[in-house]
């Protein structure tokens, strides 16, 4: 394990943990971006340039911006409402997470698959990726294209302002929540 990877992995993990723990949501998203960048760096470490750049382009360039927009459109950036902070709940959650990690780590260490050393030079060729996308994986690719189109239209429809049903502009929205006695 080389030093560069160790640094990258540390930063990635730390920022991921920060992203999931910080109270300020915008800070969370910024940390998340660092995590995504770190993952992209990991890909570069593994000599997968194309995938790494795609990762940066999609996650850093698009998804995190999308998340930021969503945050700001839902009055994000405010401090998290901690009115019902429940330590027991948190402990159970953390415990579950740690347990999962422990089990996975055990599996990783016990498996014989992970012992093999890497081939010395493995280069990724964009041409081969493209060719296998259009030959072996052409059907998934088309399905994916369809999915993206549907997702695009669906997202646009969902995020559109709700249609006004009545002529009066103020009666269009159901009241916030059912009656409080429920």
């Amino acid at each position, binding site marked *: *394990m080389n030093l560069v*990877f160790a640094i990258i*992995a540390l930063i*990635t*993990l730390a920022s*991921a*943990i920060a*992203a*999931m723990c910080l109270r300020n949501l915008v800070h*969370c998203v910024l940390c*998340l971006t660092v*995590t995504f960048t770190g*993952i992209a760096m*990991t890909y570069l470490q*593994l*000599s*997968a340039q194309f*995938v790494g750049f*795609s*990762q940066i382009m*999609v*996650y850093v360039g*698009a*998804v995190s911006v*999308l*998340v930021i*927009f*969503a945050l700001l*459109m*839902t009055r994000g950036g405010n401090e998290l*409402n901690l009115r019902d902070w429940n330590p027991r709940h*948190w402990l159970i*959650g953390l415990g*579950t*997470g*740690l347990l999962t*990690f422990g089990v996975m*780590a055990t599996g*990783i260490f016990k498996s014989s698959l*992970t012992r093999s*050393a*890497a081939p010395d030079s493995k280069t990724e060729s964009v041409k*081969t*990726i493209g060719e*296998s*996308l259009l030959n*072996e*994986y052409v059907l998934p690719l088309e399905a*994916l294209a369809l*999915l*993206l189109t549907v*997702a*695009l239209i*669906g997202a*646009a429809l*969902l*995020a559109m302002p709700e249609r006004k049903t009545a002529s009066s502009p103020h009666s269009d929205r*159901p009241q*916030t*929540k059912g009656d409080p006695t429920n």
Partner: protein
Amino acid sequence: MDTLIPYLLLSAGLFCVGLTGVMLRRNAILILAGVELMLNAANINFVAFWRFHPGADDMSGLVMVLFTIAIAAAEAAVGLALVISIFRHYRSTDPEILEDLKG
């Protein structure tokens, strides 16, 4: 000495961080972010196994990652749009508030 283990550990760590976040955060947007983290963790596995696979010309691991990235992007778009429209309705993004169907 370079083996798969550090990469897999990183992946497992990220996955569990994402999982914990999804389980604990009270904001739908961050839950989505956690899901993205989990997906990314899985992607690291793909790339790592691709790198350590002896075949020279087999790019399926990378192709899978590309597919996952695209699907995750679509998922994020739709998910965030859902969150926004839920927010319009309930004025909140706390998932616990969505219990209208609860008997």
